[in-house]
């Protein structure tokens, strides 16, 4: 899906190709490529794609934003583009304007809760928050006595314990201790933490699908270059069959992720059918990251295991993204409960509802 038919994706792909070329990134051990990339993305208005004009954003459609994030996955970019987009989207749910600069959302795990005290202060801990260390602001979903609220929080007011995920990106623990938000408003009706986790999960699914597409691409290319036992390894049937399976995993991830994104972009509400789409996408894409990543590494042999080779940029990030906004274990249990609760005879009608 190299050719794109919308201007948002075209713009993003051009910026990625110019400033986030994998080899350039790989050769830059000091990560000095990140600042110009972020600046270019910001100047193009992409981090605030999902924020309406009147709230300070560029007002792109959900569908365009999803396609943009799929492209970001193909480049496995390590700047908080997805996180800032999600934060802007979350703030817009409560009609809070987005500030400039890097943002991220919290909580990033369905198991964590941020609580809103009676005096309007926020407290709680959020683990595995992507790019918290790089963020200037947090978009926070908080539970109070009167329901769910969305808040904008200045990052300097939080305690951040830094951590790294398996893709060497920041995945931090953020603790809010009676923090007064910059802005806070009730979330729109029906919006809750599950909605936010499903949305985040679909974003990660699109990124994983994109990364798998790149893994397939570079693995096929490598197999056509590398010679072993006096033949290109692409001519060995065992290698061909492995790559066919990688193509299958990549295709499954792309189908699940784009279907879920399409479902959300066209849904009136986050009903059971959207829940199925989003949860299934996160589960299936995570499984594809595991199976597909293993094949990509197998094809590349020892070279793909080195820091010098670009494969790890895709494979390790795809594995890391499994953990954000609910792991596949979490969503599988939740989806399994939903299915069991609706009963055996309702399973097929649910699957066939779309």
């Amino acid at each position: 899906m190299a050719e794109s038919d919308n201007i948002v994706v075209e713009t993003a792909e051009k910026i990625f190709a110019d400033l986030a070329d994998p080899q350039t990134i790989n050769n830059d051990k000091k990560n000095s490529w990140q600042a110009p990339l972020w600046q270019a993305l910001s100047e193009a208005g992409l981090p605030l794609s999902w924020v309406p004009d009147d709230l300070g954003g560029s007002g792109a459609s959900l569908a365009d934003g999803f396609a943009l994030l799929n492209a970001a996955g193909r480049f496995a970019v390590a700047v908080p583009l997805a996180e800032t987009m999600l934060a802007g989207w979350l703030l817009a749910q409560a009609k809070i304007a987005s500030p400039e600069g890097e943002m991220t959302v919290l909580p990033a795990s369905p198991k964590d809760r941020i609580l809103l005290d009676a005096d309007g202060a926020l407290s709680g801990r959020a683990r595995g928050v992507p790019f918290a260390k790089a963020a200037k602001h947090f978009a926070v979903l908080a539970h109070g006595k009167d329901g769910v609220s969305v808040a904008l929080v200045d990052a300097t007011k939080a305690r951040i314990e830094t951590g790294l995920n398996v893709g060497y990106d920041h995945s931090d623990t953020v603790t809010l201790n009676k923090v007064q938000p910059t802005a806070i408003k009730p979330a729109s009706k029906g919006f809750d933490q599950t909605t936010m986790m499903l949305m985040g999960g679909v974003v990660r699914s699109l990124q994983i699908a994109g990364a798998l597409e790149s893994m397939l691409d570079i693995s096929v290319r490598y197999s056509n270059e590398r010679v072993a036992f006096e033949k290109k390894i692409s001519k060995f049937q065992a290698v061909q069959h492995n790559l066919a399976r990688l193509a299958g995993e990549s295709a499954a991830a792309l189908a699940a992720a784009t279907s879920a994104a399409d479902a959300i972009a066209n849904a009136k509400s986050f009903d059971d059918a959207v829940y199925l789409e989003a949860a299934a996408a996160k589960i299936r894409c995570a499984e594809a990251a595991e199976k597909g990543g293993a094949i990509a590494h197998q094809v590349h042999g020892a070279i793909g295991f080195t820091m010098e080779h670009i494969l790890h940029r895709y494979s390790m990030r795809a594995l890391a993204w499994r953990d954000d906004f609910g792991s596949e274990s979490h969503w599988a249990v939740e989806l399994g409960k939903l299915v069991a609760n609706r009963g055996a005879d309702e399973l097929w009608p649910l699957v066939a509802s779309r």
Partner: protein
Amino acid sequence: MTAALRFDPIRLPEKCEQLRKEVRAFLAEEIAAGTFDPHKPNREDTDAPEFSRRVGAKGWLGMTWPKKYGGQERSFLERYVVTEEMRVANAPTRRFFVADRQSGPVLLKYAPEHIKMDILPRICRGEICFAIGMSEPNSGSDLFAAKTRATKTDGGYLINGTKIWTSSAHIADYMIAIFRTSQPTKENRRHGLTQFLVKMKQPGIKVNPIGQITGQYEFNEVVFTDFFVPDDHVLGEVDGAWKQATSELAYERSGPERFLETYYVLTELVRAVGPDPDTRSAEGIGRLVAQLHTMRRMSVSVAGMLQAGKEPVVEASIVKDIGTVWEQQLPHRVRDLAAFVEETATNRETLERQLDFAIKTAPKLTIQGGTTEVLRGIIARGLGLR
């Protein structure tokens, strides 16, 4: 990109949902009337001729074909809905399914007009059954190795040789088969095979049933001895069947029948586990449902490509590969997850009976309609590896 694999999120249009309701209502009536038991996979050879006629009368056979041949000129997506509802209900579709999916489209493309006018309306009415004669003893997936000869004679061809693994040959009225009309050439080892329409139940054809490990009789050995096929029963180009056969594979390989053959064990697991599952059961069911949903999205997407007039051979091969591996593993996963289902669960016995049948069915799923190895070869070709 190396391979532009796309699976666009095609949605079934509104009229499909209306159709789905009609199909469900029809199947509910058939179940109530005792035509078949949805909770019992077809163990017996219930080829159900009357059921076929009633499906035909509904206009659900040859749905996408031109009206002048008895079709309905409806979309592939509508046909898709009918297929999946029949499959999920365990309806006895064997008598009409091959004709509807494959044989009819082959005739539409390659048969002379008078044969189309004769046979296609009868398929649409659910009156006739088709078999497909591809494999032979010692050939199987290697179709180039097919030896059964069609020798030119006055007004037609004489057939001598044996086809094998031919599903439904014992009840079929017709078979579409490939026979060798000349030897392969040095330049093209695919040369020399021709597609024929064969009228069954004639002198010169002997059908010998072959028992399957499920206890069913479904496939057969078919022996031809100086069997006469008239000239107008040649389908398409003499010696050129290979190209004809491969371009239609997308129809055979991406449909819902390619991941739903053992689906019933999943429903029964959900029933046995009940409304309040433990974590292990819930996670297991959740993963299986996510995988099923994803395959269905891929399969619907390919149906959309077919509707758009494309030939998604690689995409269809991917769906069949993933789909059949999944439906093969499904009974084993369900068995594993069912290990702690209460002995007193009301449907425990049904579940075990179904698992027994599904486990015996499983080995064939990655063989029929293109083996996993052949499919992965096609996908590898699509990736530019060969």
